[in-house]
């Protein structure tokens, strides 16, 4: 009897794994997004193997050089190699994007679960979230940056504060609809306490929309970091990030447009790839699309 149980369980798992591969093949935009993203991630992770220039080494003799054999993407105003700066800068951008996505979804999930399930907590938490959402995102982030020492952690915190309310609203909405289900009442009658009900019965329902939201947050965070850095309120200038490179290149745009173009192109490409991934993930997880897939 135990063998039958094990066998039927394995069957379910196997078919699900095959399903995922099958979906990936049938979903070109997801495959494209994943491929671009994989290239960008590999490129930034192995940045030291892809260039022999130090991204912050100043070379006054090679200032504002256009792309050439020596410097594939040219140099900036103090002679730093732009290819080198772009791939190293990608590390910071991706790091911030992924960290913010993880941080925001986990904090947002926690607040959203509590807020959706407990009316008293909801009244307090949602007013705070409304307050945060009523301040323009860029002002809120700049204000936060102004009070904190400039560092990557501060940038991550500033962007997270802006993004958390959106995640909270999403999770809360799911919790509010699930908690009315009869199977939640059944769990109460089975003697399950709030913690078990939240984790076993409600949490799994939030994971699909949350993972889609995480990709959007990641893309938004990468853009936001660039925006903050471009405005001079983001990543400290000594650390290359796509936003920083563009901010420094802005003044010399007419003289040396390549400075701003390389990181700008990479930024667009990465955000596009993440959004492609998010869109196809949403289609994959949305039951309304299930029949088409």
């Amino acid at each position, binding site marked *: *009897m135990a063998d*039958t*149980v094990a066998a*039927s*369980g394995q069957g*379910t798992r196997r078919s699900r794994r095959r399903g995922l591969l099958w979906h990936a093949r049938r979903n070109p935009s997801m495959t494209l997004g994943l491929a671009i993203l994989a290239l960008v991630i590999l490129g930034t992770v192995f940045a030291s193997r892809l260039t022999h220039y130090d991204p912050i080494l100043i070379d006054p003799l090679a200032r504002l050089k256009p792309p050439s054999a020596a410097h594939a993407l040219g140099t900036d105003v103090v002679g730093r190699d732009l290819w080198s700066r772009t791939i190293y800068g990608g590390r910071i951008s991706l790091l911030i994007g992924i960290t913010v996505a993880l941080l925001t979804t986990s904090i947002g999930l926690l607040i959203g679960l509590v807020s959706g399930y407990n009316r008293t907590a909801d009244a307090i938490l949602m007013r705070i979230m409304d307050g945060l959402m009523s301040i323009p995102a860029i002002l809120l982030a700049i204000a936060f940056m102004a009070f904190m020492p400039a560092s990557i952690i501060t940038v991550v915190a500033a962007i997270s504060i802006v993004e958390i309310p959106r995640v909270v609203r999403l999770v809360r909405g799911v919790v509010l609809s699930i908690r009315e*289900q*009869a*199977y939640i*009442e*059944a*769990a*109460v*009658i*089975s*003697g*399950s*306490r709030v913690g*078990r009900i939240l984790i*076993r*019965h409600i949490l*799994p*329902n939030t994971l699909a929309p949350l993972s889609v939201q995480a990709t959007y947050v990641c893309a938004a965070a990468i853009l936001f970091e660039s925006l903050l850095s471009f405005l001079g309120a983001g990543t400290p200038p000594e650390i290359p990030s796509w936003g920083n490179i563009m901010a420094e290149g802005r003044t010399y745009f007419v003289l040396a447009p390549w400075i701003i173009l390389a990181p700008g192109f990479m930024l667009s490409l990465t955000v596009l790839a993440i959004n492609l991934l998010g869109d196809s993930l949403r289609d994959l997880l949305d039951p309304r699309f299930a029949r088409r897939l």
Partner: protein
Amino acid sequence: MASASERSMSESEKPLLQVEKLVKRFPVRGGVLGRARAFVHAVDGVSFTLRAGETLGIVGESGCGKSTLARMIVGLIQPDTGMIRLRDRRVSGLSPRQMRPFRREIQFVFQDPYASLNPRLRAGTIVGEALENFAGLSGRELTDRVATLFARVGLHPAQMDKYPHEFSGGQRQRLGIARGLAVGPSLIVADEPVSALDVSVQAQVINLMMDLQQEFGLAYLFIAHDLAVVQHISHRVAVMYLGRIVELASQRSLFSAPLHPYTEALLNSVPLPDPATRSGTQVLAGEVPSPIRPPPGCHFHTRCPLAEARCRTEIPPMTETRPGHFVSCHVRAAANTSP
């Protein structure tokens, strides 16, 4: 097919469940501030008792408060006034923490076997949840106990690893029953457990419930709108109309000699296969009045063929016209009470 009332039943036992003057009103909110403008009188003073091992069937039309009554007894909602006692211990008006120990005793079988099973959990996990919570079982022990329950309700233990959508409606309701049975309750409240099922499957589930009652000495509060089902499974039957019990009697007494005009109308509305017996059928005129403004006096007077002047003002008390046969009707109580 032996009728439930013919099974042995000791009359002298103390009641397992006592329900006294239970009232539940739901506010109807409106306007800008969402203040309660009116109340839906869902349950309006319901009292009854239930002995261990007994089945009390509760019948009534949709909206008569059957489900609200069931949900109050299992503690999903709290009554506004009135008292629910289980073996002389109060189980109404308790906090979730205080209610928890009683949940082992009172279990619930849901009407909808689809919505009441979490689609993301395996059947074995769903059935075993109460065992994890109350018996602290896990691992091998839990699996073995759940497998036994599966076998007992007529499911194959290998189906423990399946998800609810892989089961048929009848199998799902068996899962619901296994879940209710898991912690060894003394009372199972079943809110229309078979009304969502096909007729052939209904009989299987009803027979399963009756077998389990024999085996475990369960008491059932069986809510239904199908009179044939209630007649088959119940020892006693209560008829509800607009939040009140209008007649409460043994199954045999109620179905052979109904007293309340509403019960008569309900019994007459059951289609009979023999066209000859349909003579003298009376069909109720009009609609059930709104539970937001129930009629004064006897709630049934607006549709009652026997209504007198005092029916419009005075609520008829529950009167025992025959031993164990209670009716809430001025006219019929007066005509049938032996002095």
